[in-house]
């Protein structure tokens, strides 16, 4: 499937910002599962391209002229493989993804929930099918509902809340896997879904089973990422976040983001357009 993406992130500030810097993980890389046909990133200020800890493309964007807003736009097309292509990616030892972080720490409730998926024989690690069962049970236990959690919510917060969005589902699933001794990582990217409920900016998880990274999209109940374009992965949301920034001055901030994902290799009449808008009014402490 061929996807075209148009992703705009727009920050406006109440007062002037004197200096700001962003870590941008908005550039996908070609792999067995996805072929990037063309890609363009448009940002203000000074941009420096590098590779981050996990091998993701990282753009560091510094704006040191006074400004009252920033617009970042990522556009491109990619060919997504129809079948899941688990990757044997050992650039970072998979065991590193057993590490917990504040966002992916288990709680008593999460451990209690996960206990049932622990193989009776301690020598055996759960396989992909058992993780699919875990994923299905998790979606049933924590249904998708937006507005119940926020971007800083941890796995434990969301699990206690009883509802969550893709970020929460991924964090909880990762917490469960790591507790079971299975390396798991957080993935940020885009999805071309069959309905309009989910925004096109998306998050899912990958778990290391049978010597490869398998995808688990908990929110959509999918054990393959064949409608997905991956941007970055990391220990948790903070590591894989497409946009993470700090600014000096500016007062309150409003962030508007939309991601448009189109399927371009079908006839126009069959095209499904998915558009989502997320508006976030964030009262942020002046930095």
């Amino acid at each position, binding site marked *: 499937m061929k996807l075209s993406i148009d992703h705009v992130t727009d920050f406006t500030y109440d007062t002037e910002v004197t200096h700001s*810097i962003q870590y941008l993980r908005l550039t996908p890389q070609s792999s067995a599962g996805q072929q990037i046909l063309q890609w363009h990133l448009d940002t203000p200020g000074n941009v420096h391209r590098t590779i981050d*800890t996990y091998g993701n493309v990282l753009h560091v964007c510094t704006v040191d002229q006074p400004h009252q807003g920033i617009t970042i736009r990522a556009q491109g097309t990619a060919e997504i493989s129809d079948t899941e292509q688990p990757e044997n990616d050992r650039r970072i030892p998979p*065991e*590193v993804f057993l590490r917990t972080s504040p966002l992916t720490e288990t709680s008593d409730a999460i451990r209690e929930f996960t206990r049932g998926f622990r193989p009776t024989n301690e020598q055996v690690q759960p396989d992909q099918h058992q993780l699919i069962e875990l994923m299905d049970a998790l979606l049933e236990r924590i249904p998708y509902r937006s507005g119940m959690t926020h971007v800083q919510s941890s796995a434990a917060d969301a699990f206690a809340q009883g509802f969550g969005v893709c970020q929460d589902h991924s964090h909880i699933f990762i917490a469960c896997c790591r507790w079971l001794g299975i390396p798991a990582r957080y993935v940020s990217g885009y999805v071309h879904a069959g309905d309009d409920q989910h925004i096109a900016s998306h998050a899912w998880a990958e778990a290391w089973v049978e010597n490869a990274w398998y995808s688990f999209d908990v929110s959509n109940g999918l054990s393959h990422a064949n409608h997905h374009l991956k941007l970055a992965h990391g220990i948790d949301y903070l590591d894989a976040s497409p946009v993470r920034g700090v600014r000096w001055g500016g007062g309150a901030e409003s962030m508007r983001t939309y991601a448009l994902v189109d399927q371009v290799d079908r006839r126009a009449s069959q095209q499904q357009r998915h558009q989502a808008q997320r508006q976030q009014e964030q009262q942020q402490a002046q930095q």
Partner: protein
Amino acid sequence: MTAIEQPAPHLYDEMLCSEGVHAHYQAYLRWLENTPDATLEQKRREADTLFRRFGITFNVYGEEEGTERLIPFDLIPRIIPSSEWNHLELGLRQRVTALNRFLHDIYHDQEILNAGIIPAEQVLTNQQFQTAMLGVDLPGNNYIPITGVDLIRDSNGEYFVLEDNLRTPSGVSYMLENRKMMMRLFPELFLAQSVAPVEHYPNLLLETLQSASDADSPCVVVLTPGRYNSAFFEHAFLAQQMGVPLVEGADLFVRNGCVFMRTTTGPRQVHVIYRRIDDAFLDPLAFNPDSMLGVPGLLSAYRDGNIILANALGTGVADDKSIYPYVPNMIRFYLDEEPILNNVPTWVCRREEDLSYVLDHLEELVVKEVHGAGGYGMLIGPKANRDELNKFRQLLRDNPANYIAQPTLCLSTCPTMVSEGIAPRHIDLRPFVLSGSEIKLVPGGLTRVALREGSLVVNSSQGGGTKDTWVLEGNPC
């Protein structure tokens, strides 16, 4: 002079022994015996006034006003004969070399993990392990330009390494100020004996920091969390002694993959940051997002090799108390040598058999948090009451991996001026090791003393004091 209270017979005393006095203390003791009490008392008051005037203070966490407090300074020096120091120096060089090799290894080929010397999971999931360092090459493979190793002595006078401090070891400013004070108060002592100098430490530190960078004339800065940090005095002191800028995070910024300092004449590129900020606070875009202390973007510049951090990111995994028990095997693995300095025997409570031993012998052991520092969160079994023992039993059962245990070591004592006169008090020693193109040490280090009678806690945050540390050059006469 008032009599010196005799040390306990089962402890090693630095000055006194069953034959009377150790040879290297003879000259000093003769001087002490000939000095009137009134003179000593007057010198003590003088030292107090001077320290206050110079503002040599430290902040104590957990106290109401974030108060600045004087670290008590004791007038009686801790003296080390040169033969003993030479042995220590060899051992320290060996240990720091192995620890540096370990850091390079775990962030590259991980041979020590593949060889099964240390369980891989224990390193890779250690909270101090920094994934961001994997595959990053540092000039000269130098991770730990500055190390402070804590040494203690058992009842036979044998030295043991208690802790390797590879993150932001502090205390060197007290070593320097204590010497300055002693020379000012008692110049005659330094004329009579040949005490190895320490005052060139700031020069060595600057050389070490400069040599860590490939730049032609590298710009070095000291990065402090600010005036509320317990060691702020030291940050300011070292910057001033080296003649380099003292900066806070907000004075630096990242642009085009490099780090710059804001100055009145415009941005100036920085090449080496002697940072006194913990890893988690260095870059809010990569680590703790709430950190106001660090420099946003710093990690990207660091991974690109455009800035040197001293010490490197992720060195804490090597001085973590759960990794400490493996240091002797690191020395054997990387250097093919036997360790010169002893490790304190350590039970790792994450191991089931170790845990059950610890629970059975709690009243004999010292229990420490794996990630703790500064003498907080520890139990000294022989000194603990029933409630404290029970509390720790529960803590150990709840989270065994968080603790290690060691036998209660009888730290050596050194005669110290206390309100009752001169009495033995427990001490340790923190020598500072500088690693650049070569390893350099100034002789001695910082001697800390537990001022409360019988106390084994020497940390300044827990009421410890300090002493000047003398390494005597040549043989004592």
